[in-house]
């Protein structure tokens, strides 16, 4: 992305101050969201989300594994994001390390909740097969194909769509194994259990430019930001994770105000996302 001239910068800042952004949106309006599910046939679940110029793919693969000894009644989830060089040449090789790490950790924080597992969007105890011995390991991988700002929101939506598209195979456990041996497991080929995604939060990133906040910033608008706060909010309106990224300090009252704005925006986003996901699933079922 080429740099912006002084005139363009002032245009962006002035437009935001007047509630009219460069693409005609209002400050709290999202770009149109397109969701496709089942884009990767070999994965247990997958989705592709397009948010304006931002294009991300999320895939979910489930493998049989052992639960960790400290939490024998929970499965394991690993979330990892990588940025493809197709998005920007600087992502080649290890150039995307910093951004990928930041996005991965932000997604983990939003979806996996606290250490004891409370408040997690994903119910880990539903992933257990035999307590203490066999559980499902979910590997959620995000890939940024094209980047035009607001990567975290798009990735959050893609993970939500991918998880609602995920089918975990039914497992039969051989009943006669006892003691320390790994039980024999028979994984059926027909997918059954659909993942329960009603508790999954959505992520809303509010970017502060000048004295106003905008939602769903493009990369031009992000270059003008003073700071950004990403808030993940679940269906009950509770905050599941928050991280402030970038630059300048913010007054605490501003942060609390941002949280209430994010709550308001998240309701619309969640409804829009749910309808898009069910439409995408319907198309996939038909084809």
């Amino acid at each position, binding site marked *: 992305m080429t740099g912006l001239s002084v005139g363009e910068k002032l245009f962006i800042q002035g437009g935001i101050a007047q509630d009219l952004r460069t693409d005609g949106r209002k400050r709290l309006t999202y770009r149109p969201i397109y969701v496709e599910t089942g884009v990767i046939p070999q994965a247990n679940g997958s989705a592709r989300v397009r948010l304006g110029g931002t294009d991300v793919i999320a895939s979910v693969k489930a493998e049989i594994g052992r639960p960790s000894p400290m939490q024998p009644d929970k499965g394991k989830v690993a979330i990892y994001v990588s940025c493809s060089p197709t998005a920007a040449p600087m992502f080649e090789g290890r150039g995307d390390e*910093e951004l990928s*790490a*930041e996005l991965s*950790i932000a997604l983990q*924080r939003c979806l996996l*909740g*606290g*250490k*004891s597992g*409370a*408040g997690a969007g994903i119910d880990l105890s539903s992933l257990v097969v035999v307590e203490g011995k066999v559980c499902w390991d979910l590997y959620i991988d995000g890939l940024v194909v094209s980047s035009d700002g607001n990567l975290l929101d798009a990735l959050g939506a893609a993970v939500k769509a991918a998880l609602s598209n995920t089918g975990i195979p039914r497992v039969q456990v051989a009943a006669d194994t006892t003691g320390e041996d790994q039980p024999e497991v028979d994984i059926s080929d027909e997918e059954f259990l659909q993942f329960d995604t009603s508790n999954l939060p959505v992520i809303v990133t509010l970017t502060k430019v000048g004295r106003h906040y905008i939602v769903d910033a493009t990369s031009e608008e992000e270059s003008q930001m003073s*700071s950004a*706060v990403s808030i993940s909010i*679940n269906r009950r*309106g*509770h*905050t*599941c*994770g*928050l*991280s*402030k*990224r*970038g*630059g*300048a*300090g*913010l*007054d*605490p009252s501003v*942060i*609390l105000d941002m*949280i*209430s704005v994010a*709550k308001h925006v998240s309701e619309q986003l969640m409804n829009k996302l749910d309808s898009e996901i069910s439409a995408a699933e319907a198309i996939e079922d038909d084809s």
Partner: protein
Amino acid sequence: MAGKASATPATYSPSPATRKGKPTIYKDGDRDWVRPDGRGFQQCRPAFFRTGAVNAASGSAYAEIGNTQVIVSVFGPRESKKAMMYSDVGRLNCNVSCTTFSTPIRGQGSDHKEYSSMLHKALEGAIILESFPKTTVDVFALVLESGGSDLPVIISCASLALADAGIMMYDLVASVSMSSLGSDLVIDPISEEESYQDGSLIISCMPSRYEVTQLTITGEWSTNKINEAMQVCLDACGKLGKIMRSCLKEATSATSE
């Protein structure tokens, strides 16, 4: 001392049976649980800071809060690597590492790779980067003992080390964290409390300017809880800022004598 079994008092008597298997400190619905170290829910551990810990560095600081010990060295401003592009503001490079003996089980503490980027975000809002263009300031933090609430201690210690190095800043950065355990909020958790927490809130702020440079919330929080936690934490940051300031004053008055 089997031979001296008679009247002379034993020179060493083992203390009465200490429970090897400690019960969980907190059970659901347990109203009157007490924190393992006897602190109140809104009471922080006593803090000790000292600057000038490392002679070779431009600035350094050592912090000890309860069982958490951190040492931070600052090098710079020094020339940026030739590979980096020209930049008319300074650059900040942060690196956090844990010693292998910092955790009860050897080698377990090294899975906090995100601490480096979180330290960077907490400090970049406070440093006046325009005062050292074309150069880089390196901040290296080493956790000597991890007793809980590590990142806030690292951030506070790093801002003291930057002040000791003479890097221009808008204000010191003080940081505290708060854990939510069921319906209770406890400030400055120790590692045992952190392992049972339902959620955590880490806030870094500049006390005199009353601005938050970094806020990270994990777990499910209602807005009222966030409000309450932020108020308590900002108050604690203010007091921590005063302690840090008095440490700096002591250091300068010691050198001027």
